[in-house]
């Protein structure tokens, strides 16, 4: 039977521990939920290592294990916790190969979710790592994508920041790019916004708005199919980047890169410039289909 993303990750972890003699580090791994059901029921004797609750040190433990060639997987249950977990990963592991010619590959499973979890824990924080050299950043939302990035990690010797989203865990489907000739707008969607982008696209088609959609799996180095750059050049109004992180981060960097390559204006839509409150009306959620449609209509109307 076809596996969803949750089951795929769980199987990868099981194999990593059993067959590759790897290790998984993190906090509260063996707790009730087993990190959203993405971990097999294994313990320290199997390589599943509960670290202390000191976020500031946990990243360092994983980096040290990586120096010993163990290819650790480091689980960060909420992406916002990276503000304390990231320092030794980005300043040591990511730079080790360049400075000391000593690769230090860590697979960072960084998990996003949102909705009523307040100003720190919610959403994606991949922009935090983006500005640092020596890290590869991806955001897999499908089973095949997850398998491919794990295989790539095991082949290479870099630090991987894997920006997961709990909203994808039940997903079994692969998400395909949509390329239409001479589109009005080309969407470039990251993380959980990919699902909303598909919904928005289906509605916009009915409004006779021509939309292409490119799913971004690899954020750094950025991988965009060349035919979509061509498609962007042919577009009427340019492109729109959708992200689950704040707009003043990766979204604007990608927009700049695509603008240079295509000469077209590239817009961004991500988290709003405000802190997330716990109450629904005070939250800060990633763009949903209605907001995407509204933004596209606004771009089109302004240019008419």
């Amino acid at each position, binding site marked *: 039977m076809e596996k969803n993303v949750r089951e795929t990750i769980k199987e990868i972890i099981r194999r990593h521990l059993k067959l590759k003699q790897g290790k998984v580090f993190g906090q509260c791994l063996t707790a009730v939920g087993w990190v959203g059901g993405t971990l097999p029921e294994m313990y320290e004797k199997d390589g599943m290592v509960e670290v202390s609750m000191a976020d500031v040190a946990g990243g360092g433990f994983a980096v040290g294990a990586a120096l*010993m060639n163990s290819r650790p997987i480091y689980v960060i249950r909420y992406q916002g916790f990276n503000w304390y977990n990231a320092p030794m990963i980005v300043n040591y592991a990511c730079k080790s190969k360049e400075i000391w010619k000593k690769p230090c590959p860590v697979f960072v499973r960084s998990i996003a979710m949102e909705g009523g979890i307040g100003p720190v824990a919610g959403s994606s924080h991949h922009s935090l790592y983006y500005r640092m050299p020596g890290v590869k950043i991806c955001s897999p939302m499908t089973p095949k994508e997850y398998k491919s990035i794990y295989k790539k990690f095991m082949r290479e010797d870099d630090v991987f920041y894997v920006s997961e989203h709990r909203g994808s865990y039940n997903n079994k489907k692969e998400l395909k790019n949509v390329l239409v000739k001479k589109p009005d707008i080309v969407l470039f969607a990251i993380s959980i916004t990919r699902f909303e982008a598909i919904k928005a696209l289906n509605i916009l088609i009915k409004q006779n708005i021509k939309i292409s959609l490119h799913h971004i799996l690899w954020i750094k180095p950025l991988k965009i199919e060349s035919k979509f750059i061509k498609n962007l050049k042919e577009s009427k109004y340019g492109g729109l980047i959708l992200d689950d992180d704040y707009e003043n981060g990766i979204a604007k960097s990608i927009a700049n890169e695509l603008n240079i390559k295509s000469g077209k204006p590239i817009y961004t839509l991500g988290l709003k410039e405000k802190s997330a409150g716990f109450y629904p009306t005070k939250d800060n959620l990633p763009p949903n289909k209605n907001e995407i449609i509204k933004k596209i209509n606004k771009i089109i109307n302004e240019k008419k």
Partner: protein
Amino acid sequence: MSKEYLKEVLKKISICRNFELNVFNAVKKNNIKFPVYLSAGQESISASLATIIKKKKIKPLIFAQHRCHSTYLSFGGNIRKLIYELLGSKKGCAYGMGGSASIQSREINMFGHDGHMGTQAPIAVGACFQSKKPTIVFLGDASAEEDYVLASLGWASTKKLPILFIVEDNNLSILTEKKVRRNWDIHSVAKSFKMKAFNISDNPLEIKKKSKYFFREPILLNINTNRLFWHSGAGIDSDKTFDRYKSLRKIFGAQGNTIHNKAKEKIDILWKKMLERQ
């Protein structure tokens, strides 16, 4: 037996001291153009540990702090490669990227330091946990205040790792004294984490007394020492600073002078040649 040990330690210190004096001069003459962290005055710590551990026939993982020339040299790091590094050459021990603070040596299992104070502690703990190899981590008294260092002590103790935390306590963070920064001692904190911990001087004999505990369980030694030169660069804060090297040389009298002069000649010539080649 003790005399033989002290002689070995003295030989190592004399290499380190003469090396540092050459770095001092190279900085003064602008042959080195980035910040350097001289370990002169503190050499007896790494010299003693290297001598003890060599006798035990152990090759530990070494995680040094930024003030690390003596660690590198005492444990047998290649002298030429360190000079190359300080001169910014690709032939350097960190390929010209490490400067003074971020040096490494594959040959002696010494890992580079990233420049953030104390990050070597959790990284060393992770490496020790993964490999179960004897591990030494060097810290300054300032980096011992970092929260991730404290968390590392706690986890190393919980996991009963074969790790040795060495705090090279020169009492200064740049020029701010310890008593201004905190009202607690790191050896007391370590004890509260259920580790063996001791507060001792940098007398090689005191260090040796504690060696029976090394790598059997996590332990911490807070070793009181003195920095002869500035925090960074080539300058002297005070000419009244106690110098362990001088006191050790006195024990050996003329033989101490011979050891010093021999090391001086070797290191001076090496530096001179390599500076000329530049």
